């Protein structure tokens, strides 16, 4: 995906990929890091960095009507009032948010 973006822009080198990773994405940061390195091997992305921003789970409390961070994914309830809730508003992300690219001098971005 990152490479496609680079090709669309033409003649640029991607030096880093910024990714948001939610606790509920089903993906583990460490595993993703090593998989990324392997996937990049022998491609134009080889040597680029994967910068992972971990996103905690935030739920909507039906009692407080507020968004609250979950204290544990083993207990889906409002950390303030204890109301159980399954309304996840954040924490499922597995999303490329940005690319760091380097333009070659003759081919400005």
């Amino acid at each position, binding site marked *: 995906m990152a490479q496609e*973006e680079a090709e669309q822009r033409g003649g640029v*080198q991607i030096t880093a990929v910024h990714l948001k990773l939610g606790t509920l*994405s089903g993906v583990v940061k460490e595993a993703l890091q090593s998989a990324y390195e392997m996937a990049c091997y022998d491609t134009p992305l080889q040597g680029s960095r994967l910068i992972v921003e971990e996103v905690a789970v935030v739920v909507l409390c039906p009692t407080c009507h507020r968004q609250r961070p979950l204290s544990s994914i083993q207990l889906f309830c409002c950390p303030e009032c204890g109301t159980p809730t399954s309304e996840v508003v954040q924490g499922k992300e597995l999303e490329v948010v*940005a*690319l760091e690219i*380097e333009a070659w*001098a003759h081919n400005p971005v």
Partner: protein
Amino acid sequence: MGSQPRLVEVRKNVLKQNDLAARALREQFRAPGVFVVSLVSSPGSGKTMFLEKTLTLLRQSHRVAALVGDLATENDAIRLARSQAPVKQITTGTLCHLEAAMVQNALKGWDLNQLDFLFIENVGNLVCPSSYDLGENLRLVLLSVTEGEDKPLKYPTIFNSADIAVVTKMDLAPAVEFDWHCAYGNIQAVRPGMPVFKLSARTGDGMDEYLSFLTARLDELRTPAAT
């Protein structure tokens, strides 16, 4: 000449391809009004037995079919074929989960207009399938009593992604001293409000209640929303 690094915003879901395929599937299912149930569980929880019973009982009143994902063998499809329902195997090779595109491929040649229910049995795995939308109406997570009451706490992500939970092999509960209240509490802790059914696919106890739930959901799907 030097080069200047620059940050470009992208904002793309890594699983975009799968999400697009899942959306296409959902559209494909919507027109004929097929109710699609996907099954996830750990290996050996009795998914195939459970599905065989489901198909056998449900086909007395409804038109049912199943897709079944497995790493290597076609044994599951052969077992499920005993239910007399149309069954197709998706052999994933070394892949530990099903993806929407595999479901799309497997459906080629099937007339969805001839179906009420389609079941998709995922590969036995409580980790990877949680990230892949298959266009289903309902994700069912199966937990067998022999696995222990704390499975939901060990795999909260998949339990949280499910819509209903079925606790099966209840006929073995006394032998393994299974604590139903503890298991129920753990399921509710990771997914508050999720309907939970307890049954034994082998003896058939509890199957009725679960099947009534499914048929009610099908009726709901086919009832035009009140305006």
